[in-house]
């Protein structure tokens, strides 16, 4: 029996220790918001927080997590930063297909926890591991600034 602390609740389940957290979340615990995109930590669609750090759940074995606190997209709205990020995403109508956006929101929330007033360079560094196949990057950048209470203009403009 494995025990994990997810979104403030204790979950117990049977699973091999090498099973990636993503598949336990999705197929055992029915938390389907975290998405499978690449299975090798390349796209960021599966991003969750482990003790506040963004990690790729598709390459994180459940046996490696121990007592650390996991936050998923289903729980991130309970934090003040996560809630602001979700609202900014809706205010700016960021998404197209929406498949990557759970991962984007998790990465953005972790970024803002570390850099409450991020520069464009901070955003580049914090978000470059998340692919948006629809390429909604213009609005992702603006929404992060909005959630941070910054002007939404892109300082990289020539």
């Amino acid at each position: 029996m494995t025990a994990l602390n997810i979104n403030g609740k204790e979950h117990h389940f049977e699973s091999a220790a090498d099973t990636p957290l993503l598949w336990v979340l999705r197929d055992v615990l029915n938390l389907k918001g975290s998405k499978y995109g690449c299975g090798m930590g390349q796209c960021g669609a599966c991003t969750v927080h482990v003790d506040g750090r963004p990690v790729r759940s598709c390459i994180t074995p459940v046996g490696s997590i121990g007592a650390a606190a996991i936050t998923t997209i289903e729980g991130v709205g309970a934090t003040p930063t996560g809630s602001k990020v979700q609202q900014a995403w809706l205010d700016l109508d960021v998404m197209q297909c929406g498949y990557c956006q759970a991962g984007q929101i998790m990465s953005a929330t972790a970024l803002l926890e570390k850099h409450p007033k991020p520069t464009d360079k901070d955003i580049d560094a914090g978000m470059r591991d998340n692919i948006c196949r629809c390429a909604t990057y213009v609005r992702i950048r603006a929404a992060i600034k909005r959630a941070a209470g910054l002007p939404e203009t892109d300082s990289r403009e020539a």
Partner: protein
Amino acid sequence: MRPLLHDSAEVNVSRRTFLTVGAAAGGGLLLSFSLPGFRLGTAEAGEAAGAPILNAFVRIAPDGIVTIAAKNPEIGQGVKTSLPMLIAEELDVDWKDVRTEQALLDEEAYGRQSAGGSTAIPGNYLSLRRVGAAGRQMLVAAAAANWGVPAAALTTASGVVSHKASGRSAKYGELAAKAATLASPDLATVALKDPKDFKIIGKPIGGVDSPLIVRGEPVFGIDADVPGMRYAVFEKCPVNGGKVLGANLEAIRALPGVRHAFLVKSPEGGRGMGLKDGVAIVADSWWQASKALEKLEVKWDEGVVDDQSSDYFARTAAALADKAPAKVARQDGDVEQAFADAARVVEAQYEYPFLCHATLEPQNCTAQVKDGKVEIWAPSQTPGSGQKMVASMLGVPATAVTIHLMRCGGGFGRRLANDYMVEAAWIAREAGEPVKLLWNRRQDTRHDAYRPAGFHFFKGAVDKEGRLTGLRNHFVSLGGWAGAGEFPAGRVPNLHYGTTSLPLRASTGALRAPGSNESAFVYQCFLDEMAHAAGKDPIAFQLELLSTPVEPAEDAGRRRFGMSADRMRGVLELVAENSGWNMRSRLPKGTGMGVGCYFSHGGYFAEVMQVTVAAGGALKVNKVWVAGDVGSQIVNPSGAINQVQGAVIDGISQAFAQITFDRGRVQQSNFHDFHMLRIDQAPPVEVHFRTTDFPPSGLGEPALPPAVPALCNAIFAATGKRIRRLPIEWTLKV
């Protein structure tokens, strides 16, 4: 052949339209409308000539909440929001009172339910407004009957019918039951609003599923959950169309969690995008199935692969450069004479690679086969075609196949094919249990209908005045198609377009703006070369070509296939103005601006890109300016700008990616070797629309094609180096 596109942006309501009315559970009004389908006016459209019936449902509950069915698959293009907006506008309700529901597949009731070709807005703009207007008319008639006043004396607003003279008013929810008993209006004659009175159309409205998605609720195909379902993986031959001879099935069946392992032998040969040979593994969890897949050993018959490598394609194409093409697509005047008489002649070889679609949600499908009935949960762009294929492969009538349209984690043309659907149905039947089939990223990258690769051998001539007098293109194609009318055909006195096709084992298909995404690159870049050869400003050079009378004469942009020179000039002039094109000589060394323009899917786009190439060759895209013309009305400006910005960045992304083959096997497998653009590489994109007096056209695709040539032409302006071969490297050799 180009994919099917609707010829007319206008819905043709030449036949009588019908409306049926019934009472919804709970006493509301249920409107079920049938409209004749829009007419398909091209020869290629024969398949669809059976005039599909369009039908939309509106449900009005007693509390006034209006539920509108969203008929088409949502792939990120925003139709689950924009199509219901059309109905809500004419129904005259507030958007806050509207709920949308994804319709099941039922093309007899709803008409064509597909996502492709940027057709949703042109194909539904009038018909769905009429659906809403008919509903409004019935509610007004119900109030008129209740109050004994003429309908003409009544007005509506925000879901309320009012009689000004007596001060009476009633909410739609109160009138719905009565309205359901009244005669149905003729949709062909129902009155529509004047666009100046629009309250919903033309306003930025957020995606209807977005509040669910930010909370991580299950809305995608991959999230489908059926009681008792197992999880499947399906391994196909690395070479398209290869046969399965055997596998270590006994060993696989003994692995943890594995319930079934069996060979699938395609009854149809497996060369197209249907069922192919392979090995299915069904387990208690997808991870267990995936672990078992690592132990799978298969014996394949790959067939002949000697002529199926990318370097072989390149060598073979190069040898064809000076040969006559196998097929002549278009011939005007005497191109050889034009070269002989020219002041300057330019020759250039262009090439672009195969591309996969890389939808971020890999192909997947959930299926259940029980008592001769099949139930499917699929993220598909063409669920109707999938239904027919599943019925045919499983030997059941199409009516026995129910299809749930699941939100798609990206489409881009990949989900026009339904291979995953027929695989899931087949595996579920063989397993005797409901299954969720999910491809891993390697399988998704290696079993696609790829954007065709191609080689173009151009030769162009300009005279002493800098006019384009001759143009020749020999297109050596790997699964692509050639447009005989590619601009500037008809505007150059001597022109020769020819094609030679090389044999290809891999499947090819439509990638966002199919045909156009690669044609825009080669033609717009070569025209830029000719402009420089002529000593002219590239925009001025194209404007001049666009002012040349064309043979055969254009039809002023009324047809989706016919380009209007006026409209193209309009967007070129607008983008020149907004981007500061005429000031570009003031840009610092290593920074340059390039332009591209293209007409596709009824839309006109011109784009200017500004790039900087640093001394070491590092490339940075600083900014993109876009001017678009999609007619008289943008339905949802928020979605529209998002589509355009995304398409432009997607276009840049395409220029840096490639799929290559080695003896029939795709060499890339995931995002580490098939690169997608990241946020730090994505430039700001400034979008302007030009409003013109033409029916609205779609926005899923037409903003993409000009991005690639604008980028390549900007690199030339910055460095003097021509990009004639894709992919581009982020660090250029300068």
